[in-house]
């Protein structure tokens, strides 16, 4: 444990980001299709990735991403710039995913998920580029499937908090806004999520 762990997301110059963002939003509000396309393209990867983490399946995540952007444009008039556009979109992703995962989870539980199924659903496991050794590859895939299973068993809000923190690198304040809860709640949810993951994954 070192000071180096106190990593906060590196932010760009907020003033200029804000200005460019405000201009893009203003153009989208007028129905400028090129601006709308630019907005989708700027955020689609992060939306899809988060949806995939929260729902655990490619087609579901893709479908959710589409819903999220439709909602973004339908409610863009309500965006006041009190959060960055990115955080505002995160919030929409989470709300949509929360609504959807109730029935999605029930459906998924009825199915037995094999490793191959898992990989077909979520895509490929990252390749650190070290080795082509098939055994290592298989092992890594198994570990990844384990991690995903453990993540999947967390309550939705804990899973969301840990994904936003560890994978998307959001600050507590941004996570709090995205989840619509207080910063203190984020803190305790993260602590609990980590504890449970530790136990499930038997990380000593």
């Amino acid at each position: 444990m070192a000071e180096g762990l106190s990593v906060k997301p590196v932010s760009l110059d907020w003033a200029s980001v804000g200005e460019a963002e405000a201009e893009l939003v203003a153009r989208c509000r007028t129905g400028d299709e090129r601006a709308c396309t630019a907005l989708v393209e700027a955020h689609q990867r992060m939306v899809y990735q988060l949806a995939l983490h929260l729902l655990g399946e490619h087609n579901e995540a893709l479908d959710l991403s589409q819903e999220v952007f439709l909602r973004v444009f339908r409610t863009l008039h309500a965006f006041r710039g009190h959060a960055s556009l990115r955080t505002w979109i995160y919030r929409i992703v989470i709300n949509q995913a929360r609504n959807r995962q109730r029935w999605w989870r029930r459906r998924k539980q009825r199915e037995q998920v094999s490793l191959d199924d898992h990989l077909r659903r979520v895509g490929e496991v990252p390749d650190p580029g070290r080795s082509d050794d098939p055994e290592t590859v298989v092992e890594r895939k198994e570990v990844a499937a384990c991690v995903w299973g453990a993540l999947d068993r967390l309550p939705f809000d804990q899973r969301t908090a840990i994904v936003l923190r560890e994978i998307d690198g959001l600050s507590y304040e941004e996570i709090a806004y995205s989840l619509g809860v207080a910063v203190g709640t984020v803190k305790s949810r993260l602590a609990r999520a980590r504890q449970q993951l530790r136990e499930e994954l038997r990380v000593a």
Partner: protein
Amino acid sequence: MNAFTCADVGARLSAFRDGETPVDEQRAMRAHLASCSACAAQAGALESVGTLLRASAPVRTREQDVDLAHLSVRVVSQISAERDMAWPARVGRLFEDWHLVWAGLSGTTSAALCLVLVALLSAAVSPGTDRNPVAVRDAEMLPQVLSSSAFMPAALVSAATQTGELELALSGVVTREGRLADAELVKASFSEDVARLMIVQLAETRFEPASHNGSPVAVRVVWLFSRTTVRPAAPMNIDKPGANHIHLTADNAV
């Protein structure tokens, strides 16, 4: 500050790892972790969980990237279609909203008629101008009526006095030549015959076209007629493709 116990540290480890511990506690945390191997191991375990999560995050496959590439096309075309479809409905809702406002202010209404103009700069009907529409910022940009008598046909006034109620929303485009095109009845609280008469009369009306940067531009206009003299004071915005910052103004009241 007092030294932290193992329990103090354990309760703060997760936030400390995220750099979200208050500054005054950070030093005590570091001091304890440097001297307590049990807590340091706990911290290491949290670190490992994070590493595992990031290492297991799926990377997108080529198929997924292809699907994603179509996302913006699907979204943007659907949103554009919705906006086009929603236009009359939105005007209808706007009208209902104002109706409520007026109803709330009924104590101050009179039998006089009030004309409300909603002008929307429409890119589609102003060929040769930038696709990005310009905001209507003040009343000078609105088309001005050259023959204002046409706005209050006798039939309309008598309809108002007979029914005691009058609400009408008409939509149309005032072209750069100052003529009315695409006139459409959005909503009327009375006989459609009267409304049609209104459209005929409006079609004969000549306008001084709206102008932007000194050039005449085509604008989409909605006329809201209501049996009231109450003037909406604040400008209001509604969403519309090719429109932005719409002013409701009663300045052209007859």
